[in-house]
């Protein structure tokens, strides 16, 4: 019984290795540990949906595949947060853009946060292995959809550097529906790669099984306490069993929440959660753009990633289906409708702020609500608002340079800018919480790696500083954001650390 729902599963008394979460970090770790001969059980709160379930409809995909049905947001509702919740985690619904971790980021982690043994040279062979396994390859520019192509053209006209991205796909027919689950298994997500591999090596993946807390005694986890879920929520049945080792990989926000619910909170757990906060433009072109079809992301500009003393940002495109546009478009009533009816002519371009690299950028804090559900309290600091403001100005200029008739911002009410001369009007509309639409699809940090007394898990093997049989292996270990899309960094780190575990744990 390789993939089994909690309702059909009777836990053994004790398991050798429990992996909590089946996303980017959990799946790679599970596959590697299972292949090394460990008895592995993966616990996943989401459902087991497969290609036949992926019908490319927003009304089905969001309740099935996203945390809180896609309504997750920061505590003051200022930032909407997209995160996955299914067998395969966020990799089932991500947009496939793949970057290795920039060397500068790894150096920063080492110099500023005392992270050891995760240098560029140590990670390189693991990136290579993951890239081969997931078929991570550049997408030729000719295969970009018009939404991405216009971002490219605008950047070129203004002399901003821009490159094609790599994607983890095989036989992709460029449908545009990566965000709703790939209907043909072209996307090399965890659902169709490392998880089946784990299962081939004897692992069991238990879905609709939420870990509520870890029971600890002294420096050890002694029991895993879970709730059986149905599509509608907890069924009331609780499961509890022992594990020799626990790998926590619930993703940022959810991993620190498990630690907090387990009474393992301290001054670092849940802190320094970063979001790559995103601001978007919708630009109208006379010829149809159809940003709902084609590979969702195929170009990226890091021209403004390093802005000296100021926080950097990078530019990418996003898919735009009706519900996504309805959320991105501000205003209400006729004003909102006037944007919606332009859907086929609109681009969706993003400026993504790089948070966490200055002492002032301390990120958000994960808190628990009375029910135990997490919520992220993150009020953006002025430096990040400045980066978003500059990112927005840049996007408007890029869209106009590409030939847009007008460019609409995420202010509420929205601004429509149709000439360079009108750009100055942006200065009259300062950004701020609740004044402009901001979202995130890259949640990172909250259980950071580093030195004792400054972090949650230690360098080298990502072991919890106080609990000797608990390890963390997902995006929550990052001490900062990355400045590039995060999935490949998580794969690479998981691939490396699971090799170390195999060596340590066998001896």
């Amino acid at each position, binding site marked *: 019984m390789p993939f089994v729902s909690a309702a059909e599963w009777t836990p053994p008394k004790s398991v050798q290795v429990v992996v909590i979460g089946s996303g980017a970090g959990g799946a790679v770790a599970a596959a590697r540990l299972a292949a090394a001969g460990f008895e592995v059980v993966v616990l996943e709160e989401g459902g087991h949906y497969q290609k036949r379930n992926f019908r*490319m409809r927003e*009304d089905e995909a969001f309740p099935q595949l996203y945390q809180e*049905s896609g309504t997750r947001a920061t505590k003051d509702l200022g930032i909407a947060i997209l995160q996955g919740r299914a067998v395969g985690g966020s990799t089932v619904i991500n947009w496939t853009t793949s970057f290795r971790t920039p060397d500068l980021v790894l150096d920063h982690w080492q110099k500023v946060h005392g992270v050891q043994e995760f240098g560029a040279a140590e990670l390189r062979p693991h990136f290579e292995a993951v890239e081969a396994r997931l078929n991570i390859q550049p997408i030729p520019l000719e295969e970009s959809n018009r939404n991405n192509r216009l971002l490219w053209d605008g950047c070129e006209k203004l002399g901003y550097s821009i490159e094609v991205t790599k994607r983890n796909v095989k036989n992709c027919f460029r449908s545009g529906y990566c965000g709703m689950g790939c209907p043909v298994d072209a996307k090399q997500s965890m659902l169709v790669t490392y998880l089946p591999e784990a299962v081939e090596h004897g692992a069991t993946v238990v879905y609709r099984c939420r870990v509520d807390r870890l029971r600890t005694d002294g420096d050890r986890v002694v029991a895993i306490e879970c709730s059986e879920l149905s599509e509608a929520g907890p069924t009331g049945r609780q499961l509890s069993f022992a594990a020799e080792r626990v790998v926590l990989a619930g993703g940022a926000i959810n991993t620190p929440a498990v630690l907090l619910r387990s009474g393992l909170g301290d001054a670092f757990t849940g802190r320094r959660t970063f979001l790559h906060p995103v601001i978007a433009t919708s630009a109208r072109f006379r010829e149809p753009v159809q940003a709902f079809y084609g590979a969702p992301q195929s170009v990226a500009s890091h021209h403004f990633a390093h802005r000296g003393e100021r926080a950097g940002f990078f530019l990418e495109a996003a898919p735009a289906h009706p*519900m996504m546009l309805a*959320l991105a478009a501000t205003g209400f*009533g006729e004003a*909102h409708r006037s944007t919606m009816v332009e859907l086929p002519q609109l681009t969706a371009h993003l400026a993504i702020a790089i948070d966490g690299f200055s002492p002032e950028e301390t990120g958000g804090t994960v808190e628990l609500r009375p029910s135990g*559900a997490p919520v992220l309290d993150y009020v953006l600091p002025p430096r990040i608002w400045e980066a978003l403001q500059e990112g927005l100005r840049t996007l408007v200029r890029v869209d106009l340079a590409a030939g847009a008739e007008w460019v609409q911002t995420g202010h*509420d009410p929205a601004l429509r800018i149709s000439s360079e001369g009108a750009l100055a009007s942006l200065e009259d509309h300062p950004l701020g919480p609740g004044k402009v639409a901001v979202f995130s699809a890259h949640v990172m940090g909250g259980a950071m790696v580093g030195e004792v007394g400054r972090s949650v898990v230690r360098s080298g093997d990502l072991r919890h500083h106080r609990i000797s049989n608990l390890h963390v292996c997902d995006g929550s270990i990052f001490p900062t954001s990355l400045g590039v899309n995060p999935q490949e960094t998580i794969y690479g780190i998981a691939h490396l650390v699971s090799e170390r575990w195999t060596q340590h744990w066998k001896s």
Partner: protein
Amino acid sequence: MDRRAFLQRGLVGGAILAASACTLHAWPVQDRYQPQGNLQCLDPRTFVVLASIAARTVQDPVADPVAIAHAVDRTIALSAPEAASELRQLLNLFESGLAGLLLDGRLRPFTRLTPDRQDQVLAAWRDSRLVLRRAGYTALRKLTLAAHYASPTTWEGVGYPGPPELVEG
């Protein structure tokens, strides 16, 4: 600060909330937009308020405020358990005549205002100097608009041809 604290502290204080809660039942809500089935999170009263808001936020010839309010009710049921009570509180506050009087100079409950006045109330929340009031507006706006445009009934009107047909093989 959670949304509950926002309602009590962020606005004019807990007194309004308490007082408005008393006056709520003195004013029957507009009886259009009754629920057409079981509710998971909302009660019939807050359902009507939400549907009335949807009728203003979503301007689409095919929009059905009752269907939208049901869809939001189902969405919130899949969210954190606290979300349901927070949404009900927010809707009660939105509806409240007394809170409306203090905040926007209106005494009538939201559901009994003319459409133009309802739009003014929405705009007043949107343009408020209080972050948390803007957040309330954003939540209601996004929930209703997303619930509507998730539905395939909207596709034609926005020029979206829908997903491609997959050929087996």
